[in-house]
């Protein structure tokens, strides 16, 4: 963190939010890597986090989340009018989150000092809602100003809450130019929309076996969707057998089986907890896209996007879990590079 000198240059980006809390809640969903890649556009801020090129989490903070939002895209010197060079940079995600929760924006259950669930006070009906003693309810809502002057300058956050002002300047880093995990919308094989908490429930159920891998199977008929995992003490599976009642949208042409690293899917658990709905999509290469619809208070609807690259299929599956899913795995043609 450094101090900014007074610049006469008009900053590229300036925005004011009435509360840091929504921003925190959304960004906390993708808290699985050290750095976040930020891209500023006229529509909002896009935060992208990736892990070993096989997992990606994207949060888009729409300008509707802010009370004021100004973005002046600097004109590029290159004479390529169709390519707009949006300002982008990297910042430390944990530092950003620490800053945003400096006034206690984090709710108890999602902070690092989380208590075990169900201590009697936090019901998990609408997790993340404000309770009677949150700052918002007590009329202590502060404001949060974000600004970015231009390449090389820090991303600064000014938080004001009940007369206390905190200024944080987060150093920006050169963007790494990450590639997005390609998801073939035209070759989509699975699309399921369901309540996010059911997915959360299933994942937390499976995590008790401390598995390495998550197997996701979608069937055109019952049991429709099955998640299973194998751990050292046994295996566990969750099936959504009454597909029609549980799954809002369900389009699966044929049986689709993929495996993912469990820890990665679990990294999306915060989004599952917070979101109201999730769209589970899979393409023919096995890339899994989880799109979460999050309703933040007062901020309308935001989306948190995850993409996962599957494990390469191997013939020598350990036959531990092969009881239900007959091993009709074909070799995956090629994994995403």
């Amino acid at each position: 963190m450094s101090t900014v000198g007074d610049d006469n240059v008009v900053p590229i980006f300036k925005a004011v939010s009435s509360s840091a809390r929504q921003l925190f809640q959304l960004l906390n969903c993708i808290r699985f890597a050290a750095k976040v890649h930020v891209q500023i556009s006229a529509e909002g801020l896009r935060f992208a986090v990736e892990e070993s090129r096989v997992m990606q989490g994207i949060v888009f903070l729409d300008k509707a989340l802010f009370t004021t939002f100004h973005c002046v895209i600097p004109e590029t010197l290159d004479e390529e009018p169709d390519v707009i060079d949006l300002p982008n940079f990297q910042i430390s995600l944990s530092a950003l989150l620490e800053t945003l929760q400096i006034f206690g924006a984090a709710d108890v259950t999602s902070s690092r000092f989380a208590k075990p669930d169900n201590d009697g006070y936090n019901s998990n009906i609408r997790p993340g809602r404000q309770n009677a003693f949150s700052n918002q309810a007590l009329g202590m809502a502060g404001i949060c100003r974000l600004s970015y002057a231009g390449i090389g300058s820090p991303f600064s956050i000014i938080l004001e809450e009940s007369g206390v002002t905190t200024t944080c300047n987060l150093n920006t880093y050169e963007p790494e130019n990450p590639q997005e995990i390609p998801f073939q919308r035209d070759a989509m094989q699975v699309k399921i929309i369901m309540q996010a908490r059911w997915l959360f429930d299933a994942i937390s159920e499976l995590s008790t076996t401390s598995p390495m891998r998550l197997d996701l199977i979608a069937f055109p008929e019952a049991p429709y969707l099955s998640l299973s995992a194998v751990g050292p003490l046994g295996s566990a599976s969750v099936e959504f057998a009454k597909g029609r009642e549980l799954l809002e949208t369900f389009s699966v042409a044929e049986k689709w089986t993929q495996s993912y690293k469990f820890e990665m899917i679990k990294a999306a658990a915060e989004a599952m907890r917070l979101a109201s709905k999730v769209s589970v999509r899979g393409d023919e290469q096995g890339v899994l896209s989880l799109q979460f619809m999050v309703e933040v208070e007062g901020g309308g609807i935001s989306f948190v996007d995850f993409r996962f690259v599957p494990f390469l299929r191997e013939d020598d599956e350990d036959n531990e879990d092969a009881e239900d899913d007959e091993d009709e795995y074909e070799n995956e043609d090629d994994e995403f590079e």
Partner: protein
Amino acid sequence: MAILTFTLSPEAIGKLYDSLVCLGKFSEAVSIEASHDKLVLTALNSSKSAYCSFTLIGNKFFSKYLYRPVRSSNQSKEKFTCKIYNKALLSVFKGRVVDPTREKDTAVERCDVSVEDGEGKSKSRFVIKMVCRHGVLKTFRLTFESVAPMHALFVRESANNCWSISSRTLKEFVEHFGPGTEQLDIYSEDARVSFTSYTEKIMSGNEILKQPLHTTIAVDTLEFGEFAVEEKLHIVISVKDFKSMVAHAGILNVLVKALYSRPSSPMQLSYSDEGIMSEFILMTIGESRGGSATPANASRTGSKRPASKQPLEATSSPKRTATSMPPPPMNAAPSLNRETTRSRISRPSPPPPQPSVQSQSLFLEGDDDRRWDPANFDGEEEEEMLLWDTGGEKVRSINFWRAHDNLSKDAVTMNSARRHQGSAQQDQDSNDRRRPPAQESGDYNLIPTQRLAPTQRLSEVRGMFDD
């Protein structure tokens, strides 16, 4: 083909979970034994000094219970036994209790458990199916180890001391026991019962390893449902095990019944709730209280009992054998100079709690009693030391948990044990005559085990017992 299938209602899941939590305080693995009318869950702690068992009655606890023994080549097995890592079971049954504040979207409607033991053909798994609302089905397939459990055996007939008390009352008592205390002494005198949780002071050179701490709760016998306990008898058990029991019993509103005979014989604590019978067998520690006044009296009254023999047995299915050892005579009149004698003895680790001078001074009131009986002062003191030794302690606990590894040798030991027991009984009236056999059995207890690593099988040291 499942050997065992049963169905649990959401309430039963909660009760089962409570039981598992309790079992988890004793051992990291749960032994499961299924027979045609009941399912028994047991755990034995690693030092084999505490045993916990829950018997779930087939037609009462479960909504459906069916045991279909496999007909193998020779005969059908009467029981199915296995062992499962408790952590796996706990995580399956955790958090299933229907919570009104919780959304009921994914609440469990029922739980179907089936055990498949394919013996080569199909997989052997303990399959738990949680059927939740909206047709969500959660299936857990746990691996298990096919071993017979070890059961501690408690001989009800010889337990002449008995009390029962409400579990809620016990729960209140337990809250007062100091967190660092190790032993719990139960003692009654003049219609008052004292529960004393304490830690003896342990010193190593000048360094104080443990500070003494005593908490005594005195209760009127009217608090008890029934109370028939020998006056002035000190019985000492582990606070931790007792607390584990109370933590479970306290959830229910039941009458906890305790049965025991005398120090260094097991104590049984039992209670039952709808469909669940809970039983705890805890080893009691030999006379530990430095200034306790009564042991001489206690053993004398004890010797007058027709069946003062305390076989410490262990059973194991399918075979069931029992071993018995004569408990060393309980003529543990403490002596004034006991500390000095104690300090001379080098103890094998872990040391039993040693009464410190300070702690003893708290219990000096009863000292009159020991002057009462000065004739066999020296002899008793010596026996007391032997009794007190961890060596002797280990032999008893070995017996307590011993399984059926060697039938014939067991029989021999039993006979020799009975012989000793008999002789000890015969001789108990006269203190002078009692000494030799008592010391002999004391030696048996002390010498072999002191030289053996505690992990050695008893069968390997049998020779020393048999000669």
